[in-house]
């Protein structure tokens, strides 16, 4: 039972880390309609910033700065937000599917940089020995303490974002999402609002990456592959975009399905056929997502704050 508890603690910690990134994505997509297909790039920036600031010197140049954990976490968020600002200034005016392509490409480029900028990222060797908070505690206590940290961070991000989307700024943001032209006519500086949402949304992604680095103690380019972006998106869609509680719920459900389906494969598929199990797992997850989009488009929870339903059905008629 202790083992199961320990695994549950681990599971909830990892899901919480994902949920933090999903909340950031929800601000970008759910509340301001920006399709960021490069979530993993922002997580990588957060993780590498944290790693570079806390890990001991290794390879040729990396590390030795020994920043305290909290300062490094804050710095990771700040650096991610800055990078997002630079990217946003370039991409903010793009139509949505181009934005998706641009961010998808940016994540790929960030991965290439991680692999090639050996002096900063350690290249393919990655960065090991990253500062883990509570590392001196016995394993189960470490797990619980880190869970508290992850859950605390999740709660803080959740509360801040909830406040933000309920503020007048948040309402204006949704107005922009629904009808850019109308919102612009009402005097809202649309580009600026979208850019702000993009940058604020990127910061939790950086935090998520940094906490992941702190949890595992090691980062490498292989941690930040495009599939992770897909996973985060799946979490948001399943949970219900435009709803912060939904984003959190979706993160837990999708991560449970993702890891659980691996366990189910172990349990029900004979060992001889298990090598095919991985493919079956991916197929099932793909089908689940598509089915979700078709049969339950608003996700498990859907959007709470109602916006004009007019545009959506208008589109339905036109098509």
């Amino acid at each position, binding site marked *: 039972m202790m083992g199961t508890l320990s695994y*549950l603690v681990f599971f909830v910690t990892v899901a919480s880390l994902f949920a933090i990134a999903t909340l950031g994505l929800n601000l970008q997509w759910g509340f301001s309609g920006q399709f960021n297909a490069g979530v993993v790039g922002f997580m990588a920036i957060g993780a590498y910033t944290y790693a570079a600031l806390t890990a001991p010197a290794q390879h040729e140049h990396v590390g030795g700065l020994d920043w305290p954990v909290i300062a490094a976490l804050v710095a990771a968020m700040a650096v991610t937000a800055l990078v997002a600002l630079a990217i946003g200034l370039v991409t903010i005016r793009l139509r949505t599917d181009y934005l998706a392509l641009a961010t998808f490409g940016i994540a790929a480029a960030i991965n290439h940089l991680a692999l090639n900028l050996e002096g900063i990222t350690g290249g393919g*060797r990655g960065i090991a020995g990253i500062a883990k908070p509570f590392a001196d505690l016995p394993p189960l206590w470490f797990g619980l303490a880190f869970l508290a940290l992850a859950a605390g961070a999740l709660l803080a991000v959740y509360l801040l974002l909830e406040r933000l989307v309920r503020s007048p700024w948040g309402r204006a943001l949704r107005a922009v999402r629904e009808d850019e032209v109308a919102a612009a006519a009402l005097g809202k500086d649309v580009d600026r609002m979208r850019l702000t949402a993009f940058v604020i949304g990127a910061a939790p992604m950086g935090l998520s990456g940094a906490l992941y680095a702190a949890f595992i103690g090691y980062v490498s380019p292989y941690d930040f592959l495009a599939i*992770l972006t897909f996973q985060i998106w799946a979490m948001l869609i399943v949970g219900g975009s435009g709803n912060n509680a939904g984003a959190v719920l979706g993160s837990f459900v999708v991560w449970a399905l993702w890891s659980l389906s691996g366990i189910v494969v172990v349990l029900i598929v004979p060992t001889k056929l298990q090598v095919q199990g991985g*493919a079956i797992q991916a197929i099932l997850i793909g089908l689940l997502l598509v089915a979700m989009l078709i049969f339950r488009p608003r996700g498990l929870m859907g959007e709470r704050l109602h916006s004009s339903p007019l545009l959506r059905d208008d589109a339905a008629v036109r098509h």
Partner: protein
Amino acid sequence: MKTRFMLAAASALGLMLAGNAAMAQGAAPSCPIKLGAIIPLTGPQGPIGKPIADTAQLAVEHVNAAGGVKGCPIEMVLRDDTGQPTLGVDAARYLVDVQKVPAIVGVVGSGIATAIVSAVTTSAKVPMVSCCAVTPTLTRLSEEGKTGGYFFRTIPTSRVFAVAHAVAATDRGYKNPVVIYVNNDFGSALLRDLEKAIGTLGGKIAGAIPYNENQPSYRTEVNQALALKGDALILIAFSQDGATLAREWISLGGTQNLVLHNTLRSQDFISAVGARFLTKAAGIDNAQVAGASVDAFNAGFKAKFNRDPVGPGLHTVYDSAVVTALAMQQAATLDGTAIRDALRQVQDPAGEVVVPGVEGIKKSLEAIKAGRKVRYVGATGPFTFDKNGDVTGPALVWKVEDGKLVTDKVIDLEQMTALFKRIGY
């Protein structure tokens, strides 16, 4: 709305607990003894992962046919990491916490092995015996005491490969080989060691071109390498990319003086490239293919899969599973620390030499039970874990004759050690 959230959350939790309950039923306290395995079955490393998983399963079958450990059969609990470290760590956590495996074998990707060592096995005090992770980062972590001595691997570090490549090239009189290498931790570490080794053995690398994995085509890289006009090509590449690179190199008129990495030691590679272009090719591997221990493994493999055991990681994963099983037999209790210490005890230089295969394993299990010391000489030949859990093993040079892989030369453990000294590693 609140209720709906609670309901959904509760059902998610319920799903997980149901899974756990199902597992708990299967987890009888003593028999069978579980052995964790984490191997990529899908994703970019899937092609090499699948036969590795099959071979690990073969090792477990051999142990069970030999009577099992402490009278219990071993059950291998296999998880797919898909090449994603997050899933690798999750799999390790699950194996350690829920399945309560006392040891983990397999683990192919260096990034995944490092993440698991860093996040799970060291703190859980569960030994990991990797078959295939070659990264030097893990050696460094060991030296810094960050693995707690719970990390082992049966695959030699990149230096053994570097020496073998250098020997294969210089033996054939290549003075200016060009290197195409995979742009990752393994490739760049190997390149550094290789430059040193070839320099010592009387040659000089004409130039080295890195390539990124999973590109649609490698024509540019091949053209750049061709422009360096070396007298041979040392190809350090994984299986699929390696076939593409070798095909493009040959068809663009590159020299057929090839020195190939161990990941390309497979019939698939030969048939992908064509045996007639490989008559001058040489390759390297870390395994010793002569001697009773290797023959025993090869025979067992052939009996099961009806083909020769050629391919990366097959010999090493067999050894990682068997040596772990023997250590379990040796250890007083099935706890991680006891197994960690026992892993070295079953390599006692003064012990009775025991070998792979059902018969060999049966003998060793009985010897251990009787309290006698054993020295496991594995599918890769004799090997010994050093203080960092690394092995310096023998290596071999192979070539292709009549479309078949044959051994050209063996660099045994003594020669290897001498070469290490000469090169100054």
